């Protein structure tokens, strides 16, 4: 029994089911991020937790109280919207205290709570301004203040940073993370930005097409993605997925991949049970940062394989250089140090950290578990 339980919940609009049997249990103080491409049902799920959309089947419980049919204002939740949804006709102060007023909190207490929150978020200087006279970042803060002041059981955020410019987004991301560490409240946070998901969350639910594809810690999601969708959606640049054939060498399974000139290279697996796939096709998943030059290879890894292949393009990007090559007929990206000596058109010997490699069943696109 978690703090917030989403139990076998579905959502249909008419005959169309847009969320299928979602099962998520959130512990107190967790920061759960719902991440997925546009239209996958993140907002819908969040709105169901908030009570803004009703639940077609299944149950949602907060602190063991059944929430189905309970009015949004009675769930002790607070929500920060993508557009901030600040009341344009009220001052910042009135925006923050409106919810308290509606819940019948007496004026002196409202003022006190307002000043506490304003102090925490550093918005005291514009309590008397209308939202129209604030910058995007300030509005964002006010929206969070309006949520914080209620002291809710669960905070819900729907893409709160997507209207900010890149720099401010990173700053506010850090602020939200700090706030969570300081207050320790339970948060459910929707985003389609996988970096936001990885940096903020204690757990991530990756969604696609109305299904939760995988639920796990950022580490689990990143290192052991449940399927090809999760593998390629999380991480930037995306994980390389390379057609390969399993073979045995010295009693250990290896992946045979075709390099640019049609010759076959072998990459030994660390995962023993792949010997059951001997002779079969798989899809090999390798993250760009695990393909490097020899000097930069992870020294703690017990399984560095070498692979010589032609460099197609190099893209210097400040601290890193992205190197692309052709493997198994697909474009593959390696993320190298900026001072690695790679030249387009020339052959280069790459060091591949096979400890971090994963294998997928090409038929189901599911990861082959270790």
């Amino acid at each position, binding site marked *: 029994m978690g703090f917030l339980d989403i139990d076998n919940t579905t959502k249909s609009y008419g005959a169309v089911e847009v969320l299928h049997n979602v099962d998520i249990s959130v512990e107190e103080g967790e920061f759960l991020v719902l991440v997925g491409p546009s239209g996958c049902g993140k907002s819908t799920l969040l709105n169901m937790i908030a009570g803004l959309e009703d639940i077609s089947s299944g149950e949602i419980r907060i602190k063991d109280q059944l929430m189905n049919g309970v009015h949004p204002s009675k769930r002790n939740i607070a929500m920060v919207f993508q557009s901030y949804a600040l*009341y344009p006709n009220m001052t910042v102060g009135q925006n923050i205290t409106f919810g308290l007023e*509606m819940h019948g909190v007496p004026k002196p207490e409202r003022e006190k709570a307002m000043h506490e929150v304003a102090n925490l978020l550093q918005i005291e200087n514009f309590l008397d301004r209308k939202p129209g006279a604030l910058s995007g970042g300030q509005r964002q803060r006010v929206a969070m203040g309006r949520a914080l002041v209620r002291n809710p059981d669960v905070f819900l955020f729907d893409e709160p940073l997507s209207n900010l410019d890149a720099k401010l987004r990173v700053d506010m991301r850090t602020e939200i993370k700090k706030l969570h560490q300081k207050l320790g409240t339970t948060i459910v946070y929707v985003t389609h930005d996988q970096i936001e998901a990885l940096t903020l969350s204690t757990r991530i639910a990756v969604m696609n097409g109305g299904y939760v594809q995988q639920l796990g810690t950022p580490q689990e999601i990143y290192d052991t993605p449940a399927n090809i969708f999760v593998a390629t959606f999380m991480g930037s640049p995306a994980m390389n997925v390379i057609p390969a054939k399993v073979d045995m060498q010295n009693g250990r399974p290896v992946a045979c991949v075709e390099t640019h000139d049609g010759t076959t290279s072998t990459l030994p697996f660390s995962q023993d049970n792949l010997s059951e796939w001997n002779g079969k096709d798989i899809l090999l998943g390798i993250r760009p940062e695990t393909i490097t030059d020899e000097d930069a290879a992870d020294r703690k890894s017990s399984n560095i394989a070498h692979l010589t292949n032609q460099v197609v393009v190099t893209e210097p990007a400040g601290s890193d250089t992205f190197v692309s090559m052709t493997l198994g007929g697909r474009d593959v990206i390696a993320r190298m140090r900026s001072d690695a000596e790679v030249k387009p058109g020339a052959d280069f010997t790459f060091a591949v950290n096979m400890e971090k490699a994963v294998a997928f069943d090409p038929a189901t696109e599911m990861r082959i578990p270790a």
Partner: protein
Amino acid sequence: MSVATQDTAIRTGRVMRTLIYLVLLLFVLFYMLPLYVMLVNSVKPLEEITGGGMMNLPQVFTLEPWFKAWSSAQIGVEPTGLSPYFWNSIKMVVPAVIISTVLGALNGYVLTKWRFRGDTILFGLMLFACFIPFQIVLIPMARVLGELGLAGSTWGLSLVHIVYGIGFTTLYFRNYYAVFPTELIRAAQIDGAGFFQIFWRILLPSSGPIAVVSIIWQFTNIWNDFLFGASFAGANNQPMTVALNNLVQASHGVKEYNVHFAGAILAALPTLLVYIVAGRYFVRGLMAGSVKG
């Protein structure tokens, strides 16, 4: 090259602009002419008009026709002037405008933010109300007013105008609220505001421009209405328009054109006033629904 073309562009621009202003000026004169005729003739003694000088400025300036029209002219059988009828109109128009606007706002709110099954059909039917000709509803309306015991009363007349106006006011507010962010309503719901609290505290304070549109529209239509007034008003609560007709149509005695002109201006004055006070919000409000932001 570019300098030369720019130069000619400016020169042709100047010629064109002069032409356009000339044409516009002609239009202005054309449209102002009736007002001019009414104004100058309302401040002349009658002889100057009957003497054939309709277009001339007054030789003797007098406000006598205005006072007469307002307080002592023969309306029907009573020499009361237009003033009691002016107040009749006010008593009919003010409640009708306020109530139809508030109801339109509520309808718009429900139709956009509390969607329910069949709401678009309902809205379509309400729109239909904007196209029903006045004449068609006369007899059924008389019947309904009779049943309600409101026949011949000011309230009955207001009711007719409210019912007739709701289609328009609903249309205005629905279109305005359709682009009002639904997230604000949701935020207010989470904050614990109820149906009417959201309406009063969140929606209405942001409805200024469209409320002005609705008020101007309703005010001018109801104030200027003649048919409903003539059909449903009792002898004691006829509106200004009907009284003006009675003044002008009076069959006995000399036709006092100067008094008629003064009376007509008096009858038009409130709508003019509303336009002057709120007119600039009118266009802004009409645009607000169509352009986002």
